[in-house]
């Protein structure tokens, strides 16, 4: 990448692999890595194009591993318990996901299970698969680019944090019907939500794509 101070250049002067186009407005730029902590922003529409962080890769891996452990652990512990008139019931996250049992509602069960368990879990596996070799300066594993693309495509469908807010709402809804207690999984899920939010802000997708390109060419 060049470091010249010229603000503008013509397309013929630049190598095609050094160009970057804003995904939102198609404005074309010659990509230059901003300083760590800095950001490259599209001057047309203000979309953030590149935002590298210091040691982002290692932090991402640490956070992603934690997320994975928490999701798996949260699955097996009771999530919430309820007590009314001497009759009690406790529910796990899998119970909540499979609560739509009758007929066509089963479809909804699959959907909820996917959104709160399988998609977040699959994303952590894919991201680990892609990032670990990059951080350790090893060549990327086979299909790393496909894996990373899938993890990005799935991003809007991972809804663990939405589910956590849903829990809070559900608690208030039944508070005068019965007594509710929190199981260990509830606290795990709360920690998980915070981690997922931090995690997504750490990842500069352009930097990852750039390193995958170098690894495989």
């Amino acid at each position: 990448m060049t470091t010249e101070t010229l603000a503008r250049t013509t397309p013929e002067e630049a190598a095609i692999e050094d160009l970057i186009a804003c995904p939102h407005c198609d404005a074309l730029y010659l990509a230059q890595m901003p300083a760590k902590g800095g950001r490259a922003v599209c001057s047309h529409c203000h979309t953030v194009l590149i935002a590298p962080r210091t040691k982002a890769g290692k932090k991402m891996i640490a956070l992603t591993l934690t997320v994975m452990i928490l999701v798996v652990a949260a699955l097996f512990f009771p999530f919430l318990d309820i007590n009314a008139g001497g009759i009690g019931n406790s529910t796990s996250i899998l119970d909540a996901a499979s609560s739509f049992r009758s007929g066509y509602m089963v479809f909804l069960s699959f959907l909820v299970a996917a959104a709160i368990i399988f998609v977040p879990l699959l994303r952590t596996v894919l991201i680990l698969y892609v990032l670990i070799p990059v951080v350790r300066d090893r060549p990327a594993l086979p299909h790393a680019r496909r894996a990373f693309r899938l993890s990005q495509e799935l991003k809007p469908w991972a809804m663990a944090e939405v589910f956590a807010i849903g829990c809070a709402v559900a608690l208030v809804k039944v508070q005068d019907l019965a007594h509710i207690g929190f199981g260990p999984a509830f606290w795990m899920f709360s920690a998980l939500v915070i981690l997922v939010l931090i995690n997504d802000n750490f990842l500069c997708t352009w930097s990852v794509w750039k390193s995958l390109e170098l690894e495989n060419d």
Partner: protein
Amino acid sequence: MVCMEITRAGKRLTARDAGLVACRRCARVWPMGQARCGRCGSHLESRDTKSLQKVWAWWIAGVIAYIPANLYPMLKTNTLVSHTENTIIGGAVELAHHGSFGVAAIILIASVLIPVGKFLAIAFLAISARRGSTVPPRTRTHMFEIVEFIGRWSMIDVFVVAILSSLVQLSVVASIQPGPAAMTFALSVICTMLSAQAFDPRLIWDAVRRQQPRKTS
């Protein structure tokens, strides 16, 4: 500004102007006519010409699914003394009667305000991409980003129903069952998310650039 703008004869260029096609997923550019991104494998299209058709198709499906979601009950509550069926709005009103104004507000915002706002915002973006608008394109790009970000949060109510109907199963004392609206509401949210994803925000900027070719200052 870290990236260098690409210009020709004093005019800022888009990837399309430079005879290139940009990948919307990884921001890499390729020669015009290439079908797949060589870096991330995404399907390449300089402008998604069918974008607006797809947006409207999913939009209409979303609106249609949203109507029964409001008419049919979301939750069926059975207690020793009563049997109640609540629609989305009915449930929020009941919460407000019990004094939980905060939670009632969350439900109303997530299940009514956000979906309706999204329908209006997507319709406005799609119409203005074709006809132009006095709203500045940067504002419309932000609007698109907000619509994309906020879509998943509408799923809160579906998750609340899932949690409640798995948790509150106390034989005769109290039990909660999901109503048919849970299904149609989830479908409506999915359709609007797909509708927003189908929108190509570069269309906003194309319309503007056609009207007033930007000169670099």
